[in-house]
């Protein structure tokens, strides 16, 4: 059976090129000749597929690639519906262009957003090829089938390659979107769900230029940009004359910044013939800074302790929490804390730009997850009209949300405006560590009541976070609708905020990756207080909703059960070994992990294995899916080591020696399993991370008796071997 797409807001457009190639695209805007043959100049496809007479199929990948696998996965969807041999498909990276609609890698939105359009583009092209063949053979279209790049007529044995049909197909009337039958169920797929390797692999394995920092242009110069290590600091004066005379240095100047921590920060640009000369000159730079920022980790802690004694502002309350606790069999209180953490992309922030003074056009080569926001910021800050800013997208050496904030784009644009030559700005690791948009710290004070059988009868939660004015800062929000809201008869969420002049921002699955750990750890404490098994506790919690369910209870339970089955939950493990579990739902994805840990009360621990289950609808690329789940598990364990501290308005950490990432010897084995369905697909770049951290810390408790209520792990004396 073939299902119809759920939402049809898209329009099919077709064009024939002089070369004889057929282009079929999907657009979100009807043109004057909607569903007719539009001229290529007025064509506004959201994405498109091109079939050349030689049989090569080119699929344009519109979203930026940061390692989430979108450049392989999206074209796979088109290829599936086009019924074309994957080996004959070429993938091209699109530049930033209005015609492509939203071009961002964030919020795991690529897959769900693109699902319809990608299938429509493939199916529409296939439809037209079939119509063309049927007409040529004088047979009915329903007798023709598309197979692996050919249209075949079974009855007569006739067969024509797509390449031979493009000329005729271009003359066909494009189908109505509603007339298309779109595959949506895993059983129908031939290509989707298979293990397909990354389209950029060969370039990666042979060291070909791909990433932002690999951009090389004729006459290009290299820049470093010294900002004040204290957030918001501005340049009073600097020894520019001396710097300009240093070897290789071509320009040294002050860039005036604004007051917003999210906009262009002031600093000194040094532009030289090689990056090393720019960086060497920076070591001689003396800047008199005007800085005034007293934020520190200690003062945050003091404020949090003070706020913990207050009521806070009620975000959501229902039932009667006090009565609930009175009736509870056991009431437990515990506090959890996690610190600021960094994104620490392997490729430090960089960007390349050229400003053509005669035309006023700014061209960028940007490793950005959200190039559109970069263009906006450049336009606003430097007064260059949007249409004069052209952004080429490069592959990124990691995103994790860091490259959603376009500070590095506006910096290079500001530098390029002062320089005749094209210029590449390359941050050092230290720049990157000290000028991140950190995942914010938070304190969670929980009080939970359970009945004898371990049902959650009351929940009171004081969330202490960061906020300026009325709203929490970026990445520091927690909704009152988040579970266990809706899973207990009596609920209250209170919130207090600490003013914050440290830049924060989205970090892989903003928020979820942090607070899920606190929730799911405390669930285990509650379960233990009444000697109920952690799996049973969670299944009971997910049994029925109180009011509106905060998540799909059935899918969450099934994912959790699948993880438990895969890990053989409940098996006996012996001394010094333990299993821990957690579930979560975010960005459309249901996930559950079970970690197996060995260790003892000394705190020396080894994460032996993690069993991970996910339900994100159908899996598009099995290799990409496994990679994302595995990456999330490693990221969770890695980040449990990380801590960014602030002193005098500046970050203390510098590099990978004082901000440690997980190394291969510490990495567990990981087994992934999926519940596949024809539910709308969700991305996997984010959902699997949240529950991985508590699964691991719950397992550490099971193995060693050490309950981790504060991160990083070192605070509890735990080291991962």
């Amino acid at each position, binding site marked *: 059976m073939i299902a119809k797409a759920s939402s049809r807001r898209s329009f099919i457009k077709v064009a024939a090129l002089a070369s004889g190639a057929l282009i079929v695209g999907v657009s979100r805007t009807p043109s004057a000749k909607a569903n007719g043959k539009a001229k290529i100049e007025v064509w506004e496809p959201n994405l498109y597929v091109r079939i050349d007479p030689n049989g090569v199929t080119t699929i344009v990948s519109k979203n930026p690639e940061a390692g989430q696998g979108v450049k392989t996965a999206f074209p796979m969807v088109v290829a599936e519906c086009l019924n074309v041999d994957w080996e004959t498909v070429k993938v091209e990276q699109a530049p930033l262009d209005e015609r492509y609609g939203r071009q961002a890698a964030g919020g795991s939105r690529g897959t769900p957003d693109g699902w319809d359009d990608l299938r429509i583009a493939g199916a529409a092209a296939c439809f037209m090829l079939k119509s063309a063949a049927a007409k040529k053979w004088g047979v009915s279209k329903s007798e023709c089938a598309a197979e692996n790049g050919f249209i075949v007529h079974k009855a007569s044995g006739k067969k024509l390659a797509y390449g031979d049909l493009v000329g005729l197909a271009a003359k066909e009337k494009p189908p109505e979107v509603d007339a298309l039958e779109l595959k949506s169920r895993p059983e129908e797929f031939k290509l989707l769900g298979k293990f397909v390797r990354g389209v950029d*692999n060969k370039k990666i394995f042979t060291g070909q230029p791909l990433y932002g*920092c690999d951009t090389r242009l004729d006459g290009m110069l*290299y820049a470093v940009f010294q900002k004040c290590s204290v957030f918001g600091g501005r340049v009073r004066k600097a020894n520019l004359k001396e710097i300009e005379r240093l*070897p290789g240095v071509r320009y040294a100047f002050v860039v005036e910044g604004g007051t917003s921590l999210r906009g262009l920060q002031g600093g000194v640009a040094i532009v030289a013939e090689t990056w090393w000369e720019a960086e060497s000159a920076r070591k001689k730079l003396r800047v008199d800074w005007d800085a005034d920022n007293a934020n520190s980790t200690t003062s945050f802690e003091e404020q949090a302790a003070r706020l913990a004694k207050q009521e806070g502002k009620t975000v959501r309350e229902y039932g009667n929490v006090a009565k609930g606790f009175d009736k509870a069999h056991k009431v437990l209180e515990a506090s959890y804390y996690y610190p600021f953490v960094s994104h620490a992309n392997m490729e*430090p922030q960089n960007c390349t730009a050229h400003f053509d003074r005669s035309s006023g056009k700014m061209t960028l080569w940007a490793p950005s997850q959200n190039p559109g926001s970069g263009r906006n910021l450049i336009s606003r800050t430097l007064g260059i009209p949007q249409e004069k800013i052209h952004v080429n997208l490069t592959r990124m*050496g990691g995103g994790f949300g860091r490259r959603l904030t376009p500070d590095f784009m506006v910096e290079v644009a500001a530098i390029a405006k002062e320089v005749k030559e094209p210029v590449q700005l390359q941050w050092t690791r230290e720049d990157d560590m000290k000028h991140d948009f950190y995942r914010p710290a938070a304190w969670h004070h929980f009080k939970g009541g359970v009945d004898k059988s371990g049902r959650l009868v009351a929940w009171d939660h004081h969330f202490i976070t960061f906020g300026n004015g009325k709203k929490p800062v970026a990445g520091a929000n927690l909704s009152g609708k988040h579970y266990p809201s809706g899973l207990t008869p009596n609920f209250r969420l209170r919130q207090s905020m600490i003013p914050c002049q440290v830049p924060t921002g989205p970090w892989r699955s903003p928020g979820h990756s942090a607070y899920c750990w606190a929730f799911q750890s405390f669930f285990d404490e509650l379960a233990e207080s009444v000697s109920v098994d952690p799996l049973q506790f969670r299944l009971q919690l997910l049994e029925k909703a109180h009011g509106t369910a905060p998540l799909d209870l059935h899918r969450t339970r099934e994912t959790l059960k699948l993880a438990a089955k895969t890990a053989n939950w409940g098996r006996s493990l012996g001394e010094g070994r333990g299993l821990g579990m957690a579930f979560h739902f975010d960005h459309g994805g249901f996930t559950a992990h079970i970690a197996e840990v060995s260790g003892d009360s000394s705190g020396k621990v080894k994460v032996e294995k993690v069993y991970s289950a996910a339900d994100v609808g159908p899996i598009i690329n099995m290799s990409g899916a496994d990679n994302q789940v*595995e990456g999330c598990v490693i990221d969770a364990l890695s980040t449990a080591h990380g801590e960014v501290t602030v002193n005098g308005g500046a970050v203390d950490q510098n590099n990978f020696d004082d901000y440690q*990432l997980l190394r*291969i010897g510490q990495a567990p084995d990981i087994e992934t399993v999926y519940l596949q369905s024809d539910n709308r697909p969700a991305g996997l770049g984010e959902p699997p991370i949240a529950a991985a951290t508590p699964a691991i810390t719950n397992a550490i408790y099971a193995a060693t008796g050490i309950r981790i209520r504060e991160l990083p792990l070192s605070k509890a004396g735990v080291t991962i071997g």
Partner: protein
Amino acid sequence: MSQITLTINGESHTLDVPPDMPLLWALRDKLNLTGTKYSCGKGLCGTCTVLMNGNAMRSCTFPASGAVGMEITTIEGLDSEAQHPVQRAWQEVDVPQCGYCQGGQIMTTVSLLSRVENPDDEQIDAALNGNLCRCGTYKRIRKAVKLAAEYTSADKKGGSQ
């Protein structure tokens, strides 16, 4: 500036470099060999790994002038069709996520396999402990190293027949 001659991927290159310029920046900015990547600049992450006389070295902390007279191999110099056993294994396992660290992982593995024919988990972990992967592809790296060892010995057998 001093003029030096380096042997890189079997070819000799004469270039002017500032006296303290690390090999990494000579490769990237002077020769446009951008396959070797920068990430920490302090020998902490391994993304900048190249082979010097067959040994894995961190090019970010090694002065270009000190590399004179050595056989330098960068990721570009392995096999341009990606047919080196380590490249083939990396493709088979589909190791990369963002891919930024993988050049360094591959070069370290080439050096490891030249010393140890069939490394076990412990030897793999020891050799690659200095190569960070922020995306977390460690499970696949281990698998790919073992596969590369198999390919290497199969190639040798094939070659001797």
